[in-house]
């Protein structure tokens, strides 16, 4: 395609394996394949949703993309710079471009720093603003996320969960990032606050032209916020599609099962009666099955699934799935 925009974030074949040490001499006996060959693009200004069940590697993927881990393998390009193999110390100067909003707003803020110190710290490190300019910037950020300026001198423990998440967002915004990974930013909040925080994230995206990787297990929230959605299962992406396509016409059996589990608020409309209930548990990521990762639980499993790993195929522009049902 001629008018294809260049992606802001380009991830190819990302692998994040955590070693397992055991035995008398703590020898390396295996590895947890938390993220096992993930590829995707995030275009400037869009929101890519990343969904999947607990333990499928969503958060690890998000952290690995920002190189908060030293990745096992793969290429990560953010804003034109390859960061997959860079040293942590070389990465520091690039951190302002890419930021993260963390899941647990309580634990992710240093309890001994005031709100002002938390938001100002990255400014101290990466900018040459004067003290007064920094303070003004901190207060502007607090305005932007809807925190009262008078709270600047307080410590995180004095805030509610939703307010703390706003502090976390303000902190992420401090360095004018282009790309923000939101790692289940609403999972620890109650429902009324979830809506506020999601709306805030959308407003900020519009205001600052941000690009999000939005990690969540809340399918309806992802449908609301994301332009495109990637579905992960056991360390791999099984399907990526534009949001409306994925929710109306899911292709991969896992996506179908996942979406059939979304509760329908209208009981009369819920007469579908075709909820797909998966049997068994997710296999251990330290010992994934041969062939397709989903073959142990897939309702449409074929012989080939247990032998050969399916390749990703593009069914329609932007709709990619990795399943033997759609090979050729």
């Amino acid at each position, binding site marked *: 395609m001629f008018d294809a925009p260049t992606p802001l974030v380009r991830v190819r074949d990302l692998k994040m394996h955590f070693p397992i040490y055991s035995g008398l001499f*703590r020898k390396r006996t295996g590895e947890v394949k938390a993220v096992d060959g993930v590829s995707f693009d995030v275009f400037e200004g869009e929101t890519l949703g990343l969904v999947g069940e607990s333990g499928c590697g969503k958060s690890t993927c998000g*952290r690995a993309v*920002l190189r*908060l881990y030293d990745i096992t393998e793969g290429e990560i390009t953010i804003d034109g710079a390859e960061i997959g193999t860079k040293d*942590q*110390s070389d*990465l*520091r*100067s*690039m*951190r*302002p471009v890419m*930021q*993260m909003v*963390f*899941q*647990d707003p309580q*634990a*992710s*803020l*240093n*309890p*001994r720093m005031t709100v002002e110190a938390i938001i100002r*710290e*990255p400014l101290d*490190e*990466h900018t040459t603003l004067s003290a007064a300019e920094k303070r003004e910037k901190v207060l502007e950020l607090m305005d932007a996320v809807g925190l009262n300026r008078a709270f600047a001198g307080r*410590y995180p*423990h004095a805030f509610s969960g939703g307010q703390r998440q706003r502090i*976390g967002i303000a*902190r992420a915004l401090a*360095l004018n990032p282009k790309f923000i990974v939101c790692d289940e930013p609403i999972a620890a909040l109650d429902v009324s606050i979830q809506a506020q925080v999601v709306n805030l994230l959308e407003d900020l995206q519009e205001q600052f032209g941000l690009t999000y990787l939005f990690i969540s297990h809340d399918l309806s929230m992802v449908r609301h916020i994301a332009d495109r959605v990637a579905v992960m299962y056991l360390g791999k992406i099984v399907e990526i599609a534009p949001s409306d396509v994925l929710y109306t016409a899911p292709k991969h059996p896992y996506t179908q099962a996942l979406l059939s589990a979304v509760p329908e608020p209208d009981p009369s409309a819920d007469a579908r009666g075709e909820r797909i209930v998966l049997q068994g548990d997710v296999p251990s990521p330290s010992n994934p099955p041969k062939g397709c990762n989903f073959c142990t639980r897939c309702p449409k499993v074929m012989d080939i699934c247990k032998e050969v790993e399916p390749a990703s195929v593009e069914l329609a522009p932007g709709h990619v799935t990795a399943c033997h049902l759609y090979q050729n």
Partner: protein
Amino acid sequence: MLTYTIRRLLLAIPTLLFIALVIFLLLELSPGDPMAQMPMSIPPEVKERMREALGLDQPWWVRFYLWLYQFFVVEPQYWIDGLFGTDFAEGAQRIISFQSKSPVFDIIAERIPQTLWVVGMSYVVGVLIALPIGIASAYYQYSWFDQIGTFISMVGFSVPTFFTGVLLIVIFSVNLGWFPSIYDTTLVVDSWATLGQQIKQMAMPVFVLALYNAAQISRFMRASMLDNLGQDYVRTARAKGMHEKVVVLRHVLRNSMIPVVTVIALGVPQVFGGAIITEQVFKVNGLGQLLILAVQGNDIPMVMTLTFIFAVLIVLFNLIADVLYGLLDPRIRYD
């Protein structure tokens, strides 16, 4: 915080009075006779008069009240008189040691410098080595450095000071002849040469005790650092793009110091209590040795006074630890 401190100080008064009573009654109940070490040739009636002279014929509550009065009224008066040249005490009876027949507080004042120099210095040295070791062992968990540190602190924990002390004497005094095996209290430090001598004679007891203290505190520091290194806010700090040094020393260390500081504060009373065994091994005539000799000689006023001073220090440093906790951790409020 101030009201909290004052309230705690007021609460400490009944606590300490109760502790004094318990110590006094324990000494009262314990077998042993201050006259036991007198020569057998002294006739019983003379012994009885000596006993009266010491006030031992009075019932315990009279003696307890007298001790309290002397400790809280008379001794402070003498102390103020000594400082300002006044005469509040007017020659009142002080607390007298049964053994030496001189005022207990004068003897304590003679002994405190040795204890503070040797035991206090070992505590300072112990803390100063323990903190970096603890930080590094946690940061490089399971590395060679950590394994060696773990081994050394296990040794420091488990090998008693009377063994390490004697071992050091055998190696460094007997075989190598580098350090004297006996601490000379009469040494006056007034020149570089005597200062060198003082350092030499302090080296071994300080090392023995510092190893023991460092073993404990470094383990504590390591555990506390490990607790905090795994916290989410550390990842946040890294995501902010902070230097690794800043992440570890500003974010992790400051949070890890909260419990460690209180442990260090709680250990200070032990410094004043002296290190009974180590002081014996190196013949440092400090408070620990004084207490042991007083116990052996049934010197009730001395034992009572020393034990009570230790109790006061423990109560006081508990309060200091709590106040420090409140100052260091913004989540803790006392008001």
